[in-house]
């Protein structure tokens, strides 16, 4: 049974269609990547999942059941423009939010202390949000989203605006939550995070689903178009090989774009003839490239 399932969900704002028939399934203990350019419908989809707004068509099922107010207790949400009360103490507001989601005050406090220790900032317990740096405010927002041990966690741009150390810290935390069985719906612009964390993704473009599936499968379905070649000496005449569309000379070798996979072998043979080959790789397309292609194509 999927923890979360969206079936043909449509949302319209007046004339404008914000989400056009999205389908997706999030298994228990899975991080699901929701990608898309700005205004593609990610946030609308997430808000529908959270029950903030109702879909105009289609169904959203949670463990096979439709939305009900009790489900609010099982969900955690870190909005993109995260906010907490600036003038209220961290402990006061996070315990308040946890209690609103059905946690007892004592448990909420224990959980908050655990998370503050986890992020190595126990001294923030009595601080006001406005006294913290932006990155630390974001950590508090993250704690507010997970303090009540949600089963479904919705993270909208969780890592934006954080320094690399804190990104790693949050990434490890998210993985840990996944391993504990939390289902996570995750949106971001940063493809390397998606490749590291997610198994399945959906790429939205202007309210339509353009790419969907397991990352590995998606990558396989896209032609490999890049060859990396490192040699001891120069390799002249690479441009002459049929199927090579571009050659880029780099410090320690070449990056070549090819239009058909057969060209790769010819490049290798050509290089061997020319001299010693140190490194040869036919690169999988990166998600970044896939994203740009998918979104770019539909924009044409």
């Amino acid at each position: 049974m999927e923890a979360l399932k969206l079936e043909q969900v449509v949302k319209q704002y007046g004339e404008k269609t914000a989400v056009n028939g999205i389908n997706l399934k999030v298994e228990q203990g899975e991080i699901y990547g929701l990608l898309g350019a700005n205004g593609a419908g990610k946030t609308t989809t997430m808000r529908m999942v959270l029950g903030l707004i109702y879909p105009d068509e289609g169904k959203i099922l949670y463990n096979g059941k439709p939305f009900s107010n009790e489900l609010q207790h099982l969900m955690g949400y870190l909005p993109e423009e995260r906010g907490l009360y600036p003038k209220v103490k961290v402990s006061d507001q996070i315990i308040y939010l946890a209690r609103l989601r059905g946690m007892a005050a004592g448990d909420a406090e224990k959980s908050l202390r655990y998370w503050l220790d986890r992020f190595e900032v126990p001294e923030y317990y009595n601080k006001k949000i406005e006294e913290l740096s932006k990155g630390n405010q974001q950590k508090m927002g993250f704690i507010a989203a997970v303090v009540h041990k949600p089963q479904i966690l919705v993270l909208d741009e969780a890592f934006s605006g954080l320094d690399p150390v804190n990104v790693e810290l949050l990434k490890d935390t998210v993985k840990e939550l996944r391993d504990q069985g939390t289902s996570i719906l995750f949106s971001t612009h940063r493809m390397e995070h998606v490749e590291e964390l997610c198994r399945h993704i959906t790429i939205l473009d202007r309210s339509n689903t353009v790419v969907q599936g397991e990352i590995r499968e998606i990558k396989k379905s896209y032609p490999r178009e890049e060859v990396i070649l490192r040699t001891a000496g120069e390799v002249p005449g690479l441009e002459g090989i049929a199927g090579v569309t571009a050659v880029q000379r780099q410090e320690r070798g070449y990056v070549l774009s090819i239009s058909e996979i057969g060209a790769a072998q010819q490049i290798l043979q050509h290089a061997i003839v020319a001299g010693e080959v140190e490194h040869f790789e036919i690169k999988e397309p990166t998600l970044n490239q896939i994203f740009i292609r998918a979104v770019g194509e539909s924009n044409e």
Partner: protein
Amino acid sequence: MNKMGTIIGFTFKNKVKTKAFLITTLIMVILLSIGMNIPYFIKVFKGEDKADGGNRSQIAVIAEPGNPAAELLLSSAAPAAPADQEEDTFAVTFASYPSADDAALKEGMDKGDIEGYLTFGEASGEGLPPVTYHSEDGELDGELQTYLQSALQAVNTQLIVGDKLTDSQVAAMYAPVTIATQELSAGGTQGGEEAEQTAATINYVVVYVLLILFFMSIMMTGNMISAEVTSEKSSRIMEILITSASPLTQMFGKVIGIFLVGLMQIAIIALSVTANLMLPHNSGILADFELDLSQLSIGLLVYGLILYILGYFLYALIYAAVGSIVSRTEDLGQAVMPIMMIGFVNFYVPLFSIWSPDTTLIKVASFIPFTSPLSMLLRIGVGQVAFWEIAVSLVILLVTTFVFGWLAAKIYRTGVLMYGKRPSIKEIRKAMKAYKI
């Protein structure tokens, strides 16, 4: 319900802890305490003046012995100064000196013991000869002038009347004329009307105080609510809140939480008023203003509380709804303007009609939901009102509050997720249809 309690508690705790609330309440208590103690301070200062002898003036009378006007004036000195009122009474004593060059007079003038002296001119015809007042600065201050005038007037009368009238006849001449009033009643319910006609002064004071208190409280708490909602929206915590508790629960939790804050503020003010009245030196204040607490109608306080609660909720819910459609705190002032205007009408109509509480304006206003809380309070306190009128007004107010509560909930549900520019009424109406609260 559990969540509602949590929200009420959180709202209350955080509002009461804010500096704004603490400072406003403190200032109000201080101002009230100062105001209530002003009569006492005045007494204290007056008392000091008296110790310097400033309140008892001595006026010299320069006249030949045997001048009838001077003799009458001297014999009338210090008329009717009851001992128990001495603090407030302005007293003048007259002393006779043979001439303006008299050494004792000069010494007295120099030392300030004698304020000035009177001289009489040539008598021309009947009555008092012209009188001149001489003093250092040549001025005759208001109180002294009044006193001298009435004293000289009496002398004048006595000079003219001579012994043609008896003393009691003269006294009767001076007795103030009284005009009694009696209202003619068509319905013949004279007994009831008479009781209301004489609405005790204390009720006027209480109505006045309640008008101001309720107006301030409703306006302040209303603004608090809308500011709170807007700041939750602009700080984006709203999205988290709304995934945790239904908007309806949140709105009512907030409105009730701030209601308790307002109630507490009123309680603090009431306590400080009571405490000030209890101070030993203030025990005479009410009596001084001819106020009698026992005349205070309890009904006024009970109805006042009911009207306050209903009025508060009506305004607070609308403030919450307005707050919910504004995304930025800067835009809030403009958005709450219309509702503030109505609030001012609610306040000023009864305030300006406090001495004529039975005009058609007030009667109409006391049935219109937005103005009825304070206008009805005025009528109950100092006007004439039948029970059915109160009942009808309360029912209208109650129903309106419910209708607006429902409407506010819908707007709130819609508004809290609308960002960007302030939505038009059409947009709100369209979006509202999408939610079943």
